[in-house]
């Protein structure tokens, strides 16, 4: 099973086996990170699943859609590494992915 490492808002890192086919948001929430709210359930409508993904993984991720771009534009914590975790599906090709939760808005 491919693995991913998530760094929570307190700075604690956790590595776990991810579920391919589920979004990164679902993977994070299902593995004990309750501070990632994802209140809209993956509809790209709330911006509460904001994460940072290391640049080294950029070419393995799907491109940012216009909708995701618009949602991220409303965040004061946006950086070039910003993504919405609900918009990225986890898969074997993302094995070893390393993400940090962005600060809460």
């Amino acid at each position, binding site marked *: 099973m491919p693995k991913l490492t998530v760094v929570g808002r307190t700075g604690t890192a956790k590595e776990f086996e991810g579920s391919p086919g589920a979004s990164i948001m679902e993977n994070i929430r299902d593995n004990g990170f309750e501070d990632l709210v994802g*209140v*809209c359930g993956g*509809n*790209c*409508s*709330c911006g509460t699943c904001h994460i940072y993904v290391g640049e080294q993984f950029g070419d393995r991720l799907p491109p940012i859609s*216009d*909708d995701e*771009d618009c949602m991220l534009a409303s965040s004061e914590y946006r950086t070039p590494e910003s993504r919405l975790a609900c918009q990225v599906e986890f898969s074997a090709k993302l094995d070893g992915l390393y993400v940090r939760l962005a600060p809460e808005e």
Partner: protein
Amino acid sequence: MAIEDRFGCPAIVAEPLEYFGELRAEAPVFYSDSLKGFVVSRYETLQYVVGNPEIFSSSPVATAMSNAGQAKQYQPIYEELGTPPPLATLLITDGAVHKRYRGAVEAAFSAGAVAAMETGIRTRADAIIDDFIDRERVDLLTEFCQKLPAQVMCDLIGLSRDQADILRNAATAAVRLISSALETEESRRELHRQRAEMHVYVQRLIERFRREPIDNLLSKLVHLVPDDGVPLNDAELISLVVGLNVGGNETTVNGLGGMFLSAFRTPDVQAKLRDGTMDPGRFVEEALRLETPVAAMPRWATRDSEVEGVSIPAGSLVYVSFLSANHDEARFACPAHVDTQRKGIRNHAAFGAGVHYCLGAVLARLEMKVALERVLDRLAGIQLDDTAPPVEHHVKFIARGIMSLPIRFKRREAMTTAAAGHTG
């Protein structure tokens, strides 16, 4: 001591926050005989209920008496007018059925699509303000908050602006029918009649757009082939539009009214919004949390379960109170106060959660932000009008909204920039 059921009391339904505080503390899952259902009032418990649709479905079970929106005995009201009766589409469906409808309309309300509407909304907001800007006193609810969302909705479905009242009445009727246990049989019939009137108008539009497609949401839906390959029929299209209209009209009107009330009832909030020390986008989130336009929604128990130590039998109606959850002290410190520095400011439940998260959330946020910007930019020294009757909330369990918002103000263009800065 057992908590008394006070949902049958209109004054409590209109101003329920104190009562909800008692329920959160003493009976977070409470059976109300008045509502004929359970009321879930804590934030965490609400998240559990809405996060488990296999136990608490949005699709009414056959035994639920509250299903007046679709009840067969009201169908003749629609048949008399030659229009299809209501059909469960977005709000009270789950699974594949919900996906069919949500998928059909999702793109029209996506962040990208909504961003393209900003200029049009700003132009409309300014034109509405033009109509009252010289009066110095206005009921901001009727003269602005009711007009802007209705015009945006008219544009989306192709009605002319003078037909906006039909949309507003139908939205109010649809909302009241959701908590129909609180209505009399006579009022239920009247609400269905109001809803049926909108069905007739929408049906005529569908027929027109079928012959002559144009560039609006309804026309696109008429010609859309959903992912399952089956085009939407008239009954589906009508009920979809009625559902969208509830969001686009009733709840957005309530959202705007609640936002302006939150901005003007405490003098320092308006001053901070004007001098830039309070971020308008973050204020919109707090206003949504404080006033929570969609105050509650129903779920139906698909099987016996136990929540917070309370047994909920299969078939029960369960109301999740977003309003109460948004005032839960365990989640939001000092919940009655506007705090734009609050962490997790978007984590409120004003738009629901999960698969039924409000389809129009991005549009609602945009309308609220643009409305706030235009009103503050063009009106100075806004105060609640103390010569008018006090602002009161509607007696509706499902929707929270104010009945009027009388304000006094000065036209800002007439003032010097320096003077305007001091009148906040």
